[in-house]
Structures are given as structure tokens and as C-alpha cells.
């Protein structure tokens, strides 16, 4: 165990990390955001899911430092009297959870189908890649909007909002699998020709073991690079869907739905309901994108373009 840690700290990745200020700052901001949002049930001043703690008399209070501010609510309250700080902490947690789970789903589907296409080849490969082509030609956001709209219309808004988090993960997860499948397939095609694969085949290992234990580890660096960008994209798509009212409901808001509910009041001067969740959202996506850029420069894999 100790040796593993030592190995990690001596690795190239950490070496480059310590020499890149942008990467270090981004990583610490990301870590802070994750820690604050995931400790929300313990540290948030209010529980935004508990209707008893919400008082309509507290609605529309500007941040503490403005003229009519209230010291209980650091960055003000929304139109229902909810503490914005607490709502944002819980909302960031939802956004991150959806982003991570959606990408995990993409990983599972994409890696399995990519390995299959690359390793088996032939008709399976041709079929899977054709399907991937078609799927990629439709933008994820478009597909997600249409699918979620249909589900919302058929389930009714109330029932839908209960399963919203699940639906968002499924839709964003399923729509983006070709990203991984194509990259994994490309690396598998390159790896398959190498001698070590012949060697394990001669030893008599089955195709499953060869695929997952021997080829997959050698395709990890492009997967890692794509994953960071994909998490950022998933969070952004989730925010867009919630903003359109197709995502998380108002009583369990993600950052996108907070912005949506604030947008109505922005024109009447309540800028803080929109402004603070928007800043957190941009910051979150930005630091993940910066880390992704840094990873790509360090690992420098041959990525599948297009």
C-alpha cells in the first residue's frame, strides 16, 4: 500500500502537476467545490428540502452586504424564501452527482461496445460504428430535450419530477457512448497488432480476459482525457435541460433549475437568484475543462477527432 502511494507521488502525472500553477489552482477549486457541496447536509445553514424551514416572509432578500440584506442569508433568498447559499450547496451536489453518474454510464456502455467492435471486428464492428455515426450526428442536447420532453408529457410533471435525476443520468449517459466507443475501438485496433496480445493468446487466455485485463489498461490515457471533458459537458447539458424545465424540479433544484427560477425575477431586479448559481456553474465547468486541457497536454494521447 505504502509503495503504491510512493509510486503515485513519483509518477510523471504528479511531477507535471506540481509544476503547473493553473492545474493546481483548478484542482484545489474543484476539490473545494466538491467538499463544500457534498458536506451540505452537515454544514448548510438551512435544509432547502424541508418546507418547515422556508418562510415566505423571507422571500427576495438581497445578499447581506446590500441595503436590505439579512445576516441570516449570506447571499440572499429566492422568491420562495429559500436560503440561496444552502440551495446552491445542495444544487451543486446534484449537478456533480448527475455529471459523474452519467459519465460512468457512458464509460460502461462505450468501453464494452468499443472493445467488442475493435476486438471482434468484421460485421459487428461495421454495425456498431454505423450506429455510433448516426448517434453522433444527432447532438446529445437535442436528443435529450426531445426524449425528456416526451417522458415529461407522458408521465405528467409531478410524477416526472420524482424520477428526474434518474432520467437525466440515463439520457445523458446513453446519448454519449459513441465518444468512448470510437476512442476505445481506435486504440484496440492499434493494440491488437502488438506482440503481447499474441503472447497472451498463445498462453490460452480467453477473449474476455484479453480484452479487459490486457488491452483495456493500455487504452486508459485517452479515456481519462475524454472523461474530464465529458463530465464538464454532462454538467453543462444537465444545467441546460433543467433551465428549460425538463430537468430537476424547483423543490429539488440543481444549479440549472436555480438559474431558471431566478431568471423570472432578474428583470424585476433580483439579480442574486440568478447570478450566484450561474457563477458557481461556470466556475465548476471551467476548472474541469482546465484540468482536462492540462491532462491532454501531459498524457498527449492520440485522440479520435471528429
Amino acid at each position, binding site marked *: 500500500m505504502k509503495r503504491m502511494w510512493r509510486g503515485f507521488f513519483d509518477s510523471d502525472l504528479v511531477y507535471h502537476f506540481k509544476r503547473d500553477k493553473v492545474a493546481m489552482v483548478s484542482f484545489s477549486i474543484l476539490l473545494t467545490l466538491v467538499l463544500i457541496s457534498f458536506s451540505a447536509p452537515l454544514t448548510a445553514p438551512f435544509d432547502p428540502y424541508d418546507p418547515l424551514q422556508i418562510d415566505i416572509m423571507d422571500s427576495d432578500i438581497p445578499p447581506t452586504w446590500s441595503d436590505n440584506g439579512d445576516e441570516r442569508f449570506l447571499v440572499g433568498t429566492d422568491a420562495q424564501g429559500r436560503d440561496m447559499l444552502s440551495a446552491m450547496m445542495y444544487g451543486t451536489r446534484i449537478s456533480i452527482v448527475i455529471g459523474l453518474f452519467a459519465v460512468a454510464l457512458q464509460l460502461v456502455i462505450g468501453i464494452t461496445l468499443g472493445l467488442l467492435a475493435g476486438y471482434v471486428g468484421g460485421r459487428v*464492428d*461495421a454495425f456498431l*460504428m*454505423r450506429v455510433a*455515426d*448516426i448517434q*453522433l*450526428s*444527432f*447532438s446529445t*442536447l*437535442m436528443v435529450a*430535450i*426531445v426524449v425528456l*420532453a*416526451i417522458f*415529461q*408529457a*407522458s408521465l405528467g410533471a409531478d410524477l416526472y419530477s420524482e424520477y428526474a435525476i434518474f432520467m437525466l443520468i440515463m439520457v445523458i449517459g446513453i446519448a454519449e457512448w459513441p465518444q468512448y466507443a470510437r476512442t476505445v475501438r481506435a486504440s484496440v485496433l492499434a493494440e491488437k497488432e502488438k506482440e503481447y496480445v499474441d503472447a497472451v493468446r498463445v498462453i490460452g487466455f480467453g477473449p474476455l480476459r484479453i480484452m479487459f485485463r490486457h488491452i483495456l489498461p493500455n487504452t486508459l490515457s485517452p479515456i481519462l482525457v475524454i472523461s474530464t471533458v465529458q463530465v*464538464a459537458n454532462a454538467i*453543462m447539458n444537465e*444545467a*441546460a435541460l433543467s*433551465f*428549460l*424545465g*425538463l430537468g430537476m424540479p424547483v423543490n429539488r433544484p440543481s444549479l440549472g433549475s436555480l*438559474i431558471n427560477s431566478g*431568471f423570472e425575477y*432578474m*428583470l424585476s431586479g433580483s*439579480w442574486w437568484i*440568478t447570478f450566484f448559481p*450561474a457563477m458557481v*456553474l*461556470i466556475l465548476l*465547468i*471551467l476548472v474541469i*475543462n*482546465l484540468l482536462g*486541457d492540462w491532462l491532454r497536454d501531459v498524457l498527449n494521447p492520440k485522440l479520435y*477527432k*471528429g
Partner: protein
Amino acid sequence: MFAFLVRRLIQAMVVMFVISLISFSIQDNLGDPLREMVGVSVSEAERELLRDELGLNDPFLEQYGRFLSRAIRGDLGDSYFFKRPALEVIMEKFSATMELVLGATLIIVTLSAPIGVYCAINPRSWLSKTLMGLSIVGISVPVFLTAIMLIYVFAIHLGWLPSYGRGDTVMVGFWETGMLTRDGLEHLILPSIALSSIMLPLFIRLIRAEMMECLEQEYIRFAYAKGLDQRRIWFLHALKNTLLPVITVGGVQIGTMIAYTILTETVFQWPGMGFLFLEAVNRTDTPLIIAYMIVVGLIFVITNTVVDLVYGLVNPTVKLAGRGA
């Protein structure tokens, strides 16, 4: 070339078939078409009779066949809300969405190529470093937030430009355009900027990366060795090969842009197809939802086919029939 065309056509037909199947299956499951027509005050026996008359009790395939034959003739049913043919309602809004896309495309094309090329040629200058830094901020700001910020700054705070709607429009034949009136153009500025806000940095980064890759290749070095003018090498030899991948990505991004029009149109209350679609979803106006899906599906299929064809024409080395396989 011919084999490729046939293949593309088959692929396009498969996609449209899937879309039609989805459209058809939601047709009867989203709300009750009978209730939309007659209300609740009709007895069960009469309903059953009407249901038979409308063919709602026929086998699935028969109903689907009927739906398909009507759809091909452009009849997708009447919108529940507007009480007019759904396709007609959608097509009225088509011009608004297309002009928005056109405005955004103009911004992207005129800005991304010069900036991308500049950043590739002078990678170490402070200006390109600033531009690249800005571009990563640009791709991190969701489209709807850019739209909201633009409204807040330019419409509410400064009051320079209108914040919602399309302004005055004029009819040119069957095309309703806002691009010929001053008011219409003013209304177009903010939504176009918002729509282009995420694509522009994406394209700048893409063009820069491709151009830098091109500049490192042998034939460029050979061109220098021949003593060719530097400008000629940059803008003729390198730029040509840079644009190939840009075309492919561009085709895919047109689709993404249509999706983003839904966001932009919602924020700016732009009377286009996307805004109409969201309204239809909220009203469970099934024929309109179906019409939107089919129109947008067609746009996707057509642009993808055209982009592939163009790519084949500009890049003679590409083996069209074997692409993707």
C-alpha cells in the same frame, strides 16, 4: 461515389424510419386524442363508436401504415392548440430559427478563421495567449447564461438593444424575414451572439490545433525550402488542409446549434421552432411535437449527407464508400 450516395440514402431512410416509429408510438400515448376532440361529456358507447370510426382500434401495423402514408404527403395532423395543420404552424416559424442560425454562423465564420489562424501562426504572442485563455472560458459558459448576461448588460443595464422578440418583419415571397428592417436586425444581434458564444471558441481552438499540426508537416518545410513566400505558405498551403477537418466538425455542430436555438429562443422569446416546441411540450400538443421532431430530423439528415458529400469533393483522397466502416 454512386455506392456512397446509395449507402447514405439508406442510412438517412433508416434514421427517418426510426423517427417516424417513435413519433407514431407517442401519438396515441401522449394524452387521449378523443378527449382532445370531443371533451369529457360524451358517453362511453359513443366514444367506442368514434374510436372505431377513427381507426384507433385497428392493428398496429395498419395504423402505422396510415400514419406513414399521411406523413409522406405532409399531413401530420392538426395542432390541438392552434387548430391548424401542425406542419404549417412549424413551417411558419422555420424562417425565424433559420435566420438566427444564419446570424450565428456569420459571426462564427468571420471570426473563428482569422483568430484561429493568428493563434496558430503566433503561438507565443501575448494576444494569442489571451485569446486562447478567453476561449476556454467561452466554452465553459453555457449558452443560456451568455444569453441572460447579454440581456442584463445590453438590454436592461445599457438599454442599447431590444431584449426579446423578433421586431418588425417583412414577407419576401413565402419567407418572413427580419433581416431587411432596422428593427429586425437590432433584434437579431443579441440572440445571434448568444447562439454563437459556445461554437466560436470551439472553432477557434479547432482551427488553431489543426493549423499548428499542418505547419509541422514535411510539405510545409519543403515549401519553405523552395523559398516560397511565407504568406503564401500560410494561407494557401497550410490553410487548405486545415479546413478539411473543420468541415466535418462543422457539419456535426450545425445539429448542436439547432439544439441550442431552443435555449436561445427561450431566453429571448424568439418566435422560432424551438420556442414553439417547448410551448407544445407544456401543452402536450402531440401533433406539434411530432412535426417538430420530423422537421428537425430531416434537417439533421440532410446537413449530414451534404457535409459528407462536400468532404468527399474537397478531399479527393477520401474513400467514400468505406468511410466509418
